[in-house]
């Protein structure tokens, strides 16, 4: 638990603007540097540009879902090691399995329990 500003950067990929802004607010309040992307394509270019320490990705995205984003990232060498948390409003258990299979280190269903999310973020990137 660091109260000091950190250099840790988080990329939030979420198409719903309210959710995107709300998550940014939450993470910034914990002193992370947050960048956002509203779809799969801009998510990959933002990741290449920002080189975040963690990516939160929504599954339901326009122009290719969150799984596609994960596949793209793992195919790009410098980005492949970046930890990814999956967020979804969907309840199908298959999604969880698929996210795990693609290497997601966290899985959060909406509405997100803030306490759980923050402890997970701290565990992964400090």
């Amino acid at each position, binding site marked *: 638990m660091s109260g000091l500003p950190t250099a840790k950067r988080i990329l939030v990929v979420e198409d719903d603007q309210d959710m995107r802004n709300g998550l940014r607010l939450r993470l910034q309040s914990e002193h992370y540097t947050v960048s956002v992307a509203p779809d799969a394509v801009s998510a990959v270019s933002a990741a290449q540009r920002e080189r975040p320490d963690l990516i939160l990705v929504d599954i339901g995205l326009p122009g290719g879902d969150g799984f596609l984003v994960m596949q793209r990232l793992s195919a790009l060498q410098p980005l492949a090691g970046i930890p990814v948390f999956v967020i979804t409003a969907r309840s*199908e258990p298959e999604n969880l399995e698929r996210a795990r299979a693609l290497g997601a280190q966290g899985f959060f269903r909406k509405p997100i329990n803030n306490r759980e999310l923050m402890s997970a973020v701290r565990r992964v990137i400090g």
Partner: protein
Amino acid sequence: MSRASILVVEDNPQTRKLLRVTLEGAGHAVREAESAQIALELIASDTPRLVLLDLVLPDMDGVELLRRVRGRPGGDTIPVLAISGMRARLEEVAGLHDEFTDTLLKPVTTSRLLEQVRSILAPPAGATPAPGRGISVLLVDDDPLQRKLLAIHLADAGFRVIEAGDGRQALEQARHATPDVVLSDVLMPDMDGFRLCRLVREDEVLRDTPVVLLSSAYTEADDAKLALKVGASAILVRTPEPAGIVRVLLDSLRAPRPMVGREGMPTAEYAARVRRQLDRHLERNAELSQRVALLEAEITMLAGTTEAIARGAPTEHVLGELLHRCMDAVGAASGAWYADGADGLRLVDEIVAGDDGHPAPPRSLRGHESAIGEALAAGAPGAFDRSSDPGPGRRLLELTGLGSLIFSPIQMRGERLGALSIGWTGDRLDGAWMPFIEAMAGQFAQAMELSRAVLALATTERNYRLAFEGSPAGAFIASADAAFVAVNPALAGILGHGSADAVIASLPCVCDMFADRARGAGFVARAREEGLATGEFELLRPGGEVRWVLAGLRAMRGPDGRILHLEGTVLDVTERRQAAELARREALQGEQLRIRDQFLSQVSHELRTPLAAIHLYAGIVNDGLAGPLVDEQRQHLETVLRNAVELSAMIDDLLEVTRAGTGALVIRPEPLQLDELVGHAVRTLRAAAAARRIAIAVRIAPGLPDVDADAARTGQVLVNLLENAIKFTPSGGEITVSADADPGTAGMVRVSVADTGCGIDAGEVPRVFDYLYQGASAGSLSRKGFGIGLHLCRDLVSRQGGNIWVESVPGRGSVFSFTIPTHQPAAGREREAA
């Protein structure tokens, strides 16, 4: 006389033979043709004097054949006599008067045939028109047939014929009216020809009348000498050809008056000659009777074969009977017939004259099959007697003690079917038997072939019958006008009738099978027109039950194109149709469910997204990120957050129960440790419980076996029960989660969640697991959601083979319990299955 012959064109062998014998008996040379083609060939090789033409021939119409004959060079002068059994047909062709010379109706009588032939041929080509004109001849013969025949011939030659049946009558007649010449048979009862001649010579009036003697059998020099002595002009043998007799008669009239011996009747010589004539006659009679025996044997064979065909019975006993007849006819001592098998000849039947049932009597050919096979190796009949060259035949004679033997292969179209052997005790073989034995072998061949064919036909018929009777498909045969002829049991079953006979009796027409008779009639009409019709039909059973059938109908036509009968098949496709309909409905339902599932999933997603935003921002505000809050504000925001979470859980429940109902929810059991499962669920809710100051205790029985369960679904049940317990347990209460072996059912583990809550009224207990059930006491403490949670629990538990129930004491608490099967190692499960 001309040697040109009469050509008999007739395909029926009996009629042909009859015509030939009759014509030959009248002295005509005859050639035979069984078809128009052969007739044309014979006419081309030698122009006949006359053609007898059957109007119905296998290869050509009689009228057409006549045209061809007429079309040949010189063919227009050949007389052609049309023969037919149909008067109308004869009258019709008689209209073609230029074409046919005359017509003759069957059955043909001898006299009518000869008369007509004579009238057509007279005067015979090259003969003096009537050499006997003006001459009277006294014809003496005791045989009325011979006398009649000769009388006709003589009349033809122009003679005036007076007939007498014996010598005495002849003398009387001659004394009454003196004939120019006497023609007498030699052998007659009471008074023979020699004596008659002598008496004529001694008669005052008749003494100069020439007498010609006619022997039916035989003449020798001594006969001629005696004839001369008794004053006969000549003695000659009766022949079918009358021209010789006419010539001798004419010669006798021109000759000088015959000498009459003075010494009277030469008694000793006369007696000797008469005896000799009688002997010869007897010999001839014996020959004739033998021929009769042979013919009789042939007829027996034909009759036997015919009978065998009619009865479809094996012909072996028929052939045995024939062998017997055959042996009788030829006076044989032994006879046997053999059939060819895989290992050569096999003795089928043997008859040994005087056989008293001894297994291998003397003269038996039993056991010598291979030697017989050897003797027949050349494929031709063989005859052996004691004078034959050494070889298999001679060896067999020695082995059997027989004097002579004839073997003949029984063959058909070059294939040997068996063999026939006939043996005699006499040392010298009568060569005359050879053709007879061969003919017999031919008859055997026909019979064996027929027997084979009949057997093959019977087998085919039996197979067909079996197939028809035993077929699981309905089958029937109907007449050309669609009346049932035969119905198999399967069809009777499909139609709902007790038996095939009941179908035939109650349904007059094939189309009556179908509920829509008009459609059925159209179906029959289509089969009749196009040869084949198929269709799916509804039929109504007598009890009113409706069945669906696939029916096929084929029209079977004869060579002339007429419909002989109809053959049909009927398949009951009711079940198939029902299954197809069900599958169609299921597919439709499946598709509808899939769409509903997809829709609900989408709805839940869409509902959850704004809910997540509400929850997120309420949290942000509540955590003071948007500025400091007073306590009351914070409390209200917490209520917002709690309700957002509750709403989210309700959306989950709704989706889950829908998925369970449509089968989209999949259970994947795996071996699990219960303490882990329980521990995880308790950890998930410990915070929520702690917030209400509720303690959760866990008691797992030691040594509890693993269970076969879906971790996620079983965890879901536990969480649900715990959430309910927390919801209904007042602050400071206690929840106990326990797991032990189910005392009620072996092989099951029981998991219970006990609370110290308000409990459930006894009346509500049976209904708490019902879908959409909400307790009557709801509302005071908390919402109960859609009434889905417990219903979903029951569904998840029962899908894993377990059971769920509740025991409750109002005011003291409830115990929710469910069971899960314990894990069975693979081997154990197999043993159980076995």
